[in-house]
């Protein structure tokens, strides 16, 4: 029997629970090109890092020779909204990201995230209290999903109670991010995604309009009313930014928290230490971002000229996949890379990417996950996995368990 190409095995759902042996195999060919028209797959730490800082590597969907559509990618025909800064190059990327940042972080809003810490604690406490007398919960549905959704809603200024509405639009959009789903995507699927994006945009447009008239202390208000040196975003730019922040603001964190709890339950000694020392959560989260990064692949890059890498020429216009999760376990970079070890001296991971597209919401995701894991460790009495491995979400890019059933003896 002939083996399927490695990159197809990686996107194959059958390998979702443990893709790491495939990544190890992948690293044997640092630049792997397995089929005509297929991606150039880059899997070593230093190469990925170099390409993330390479001004010849574009994120602009328009530069992809064989541009395929996806929801977050926001190809220009998708749902009528312009591309978000995630899929733009400088100078447009820089301008939009600067404006978005002025609503979110330093130097303009140095304390917006810091000031949410009390609120984050409160939400986590409420969710854990909500487990009530149960002795088994699905940590995804009852904790890891509702927590970041509540947070991103508060931050943006989206009513929390609208979650069921926007979830029905978000899910098809996120599904299109998966390369495997996309290949098999029928026109109906693409159409649903486009409609979802438009619906989500229209829903947010209503909120933005309201915030334009009556600004509040939230990101939507600041985006709608930005008047800095970079000028204002157009209404359409506000909407595509808001769609991006809403989706990216929780779809990745849910996986980071769930992967985190799964990893801790597989490493009870670390979980035990975390129970005693909540400060350890800081290093645990960094090691998680290396060991089980929620974004495993950055599949949306292309080069605007031929690039020579490790003796292979990547021709202009080729699709490049940066295998973040493989680079994070590159033995050329990390000692004993397959060991989960929050005490390691050096955890300079690629979990949030690097360069100009490095994760916009990283500080929020860090705080959320630190609080989530330390509180779960502190409050769950004798927690254990009900099923290992747990069932996974289909997505190979945003990889994480669909459910994580955890049994415990009670709440502290």
């Amino acid at each position, binding site marked *: 029997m002939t083996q399927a190409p490695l990159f197809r095995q990686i996107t194959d759902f059958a390998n979702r629970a443990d893709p790491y042996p495939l990544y190890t195999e992948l690293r044997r060919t640092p630049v792997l090109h397995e089929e005509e028209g297929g991606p150039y797959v880059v899997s070593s730490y230093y190469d990925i890092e170099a390409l993330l800082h390479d001004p010849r590597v574009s994120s602009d969907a328009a530069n992809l020779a064989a541009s395929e559509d996806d929801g977050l990618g926001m190809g220009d025909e998708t749902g009528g909204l312009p591309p978000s800064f995630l899929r733009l190059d400088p100078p447009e990327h820089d301008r939009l990201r600067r404006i978005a940042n002025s609503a979110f972080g330093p*130097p303009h809003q140095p304390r917006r995230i810091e000031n949410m810490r009390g609120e984050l604690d409160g939400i986590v406490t409420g969710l854990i209290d909500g487990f009530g007398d149960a002795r088994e919960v699905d940590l995804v549905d009852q904790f890891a999903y509702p927590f970041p959704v509540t947070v991103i809603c508060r931050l943006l200024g989206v009513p929390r109670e609208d979650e069921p509405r926007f979830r029905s639009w978000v899910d098809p959009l996120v599904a299109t991010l998966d390369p495997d789903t996309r290949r098999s995507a029928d026109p109906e699927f693409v159409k649903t995604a486009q409609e979802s994006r438009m619906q989500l945009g229209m829903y947010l447009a209503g909120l933005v309009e309201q915030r334009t008239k009556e600004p509040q202390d939230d990101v939507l208000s600041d985006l709608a009313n930005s008047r800095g040196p970079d000028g204002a975003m157009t209404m359409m730019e506000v909407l595509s930014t808001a769609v991006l922040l809403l989706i990216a603001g929780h779809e990745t964190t849910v996986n980071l928290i769930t992967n985190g709890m799964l990893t801790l339950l597989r490493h009870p000694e670390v979980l035990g230490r975390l129970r005693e020392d909540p400060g350890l959560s800081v290093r645990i989260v960094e090691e998680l971002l290396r060991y089980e990064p929620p974004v495993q692949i950055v599949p949306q890059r292309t080069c605007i000229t031929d690039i020579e890498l490790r003796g292979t020429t990547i021709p202009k216009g080729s699709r490049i996949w940066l295998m973040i999760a493989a680079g994070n376990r590159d033995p050329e970079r990390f000692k004993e890379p397959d060991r989960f070890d929050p005490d390691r001296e050096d955890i300079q991971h690629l979990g949030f990417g690097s360069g100009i597209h490095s994760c916009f919401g990283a500080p929020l995701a860090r705080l959320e996950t630190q609080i989530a894991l330390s509180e779960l460790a502190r409050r769950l009495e004798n927690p254990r996995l009900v099923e290992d491995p747990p069932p996974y979400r289909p997505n190979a890019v945003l990889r994480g368990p669909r459910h994580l059933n955890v049994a415990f003896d009670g709440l502290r």
Partner: protein
Amino acid sequence: MRLVVDLNKCQGYAQCAFLAPDVFAMHGEESLIYNPRADEEQRERLARAVAACPVQAITADGLDGMGGSTASAPEASDAR
């Protein structure tokens, strides 16, 4: 607690400024300024900032017991 940032390594990701805003501040879009002598009450925030720096550019002492060692910065520069 004393600290120093290797500003050659620093790429202005601002994680430290988010996580310890009383110690680190962005001055413009990508310049970092910071207080090299952080108050004791900043210990936890400083530890978060040190761990979160994507380029591991922050060296601090006096963070013992915060779940790990301090980062070190083997290279950097300034035009003086």
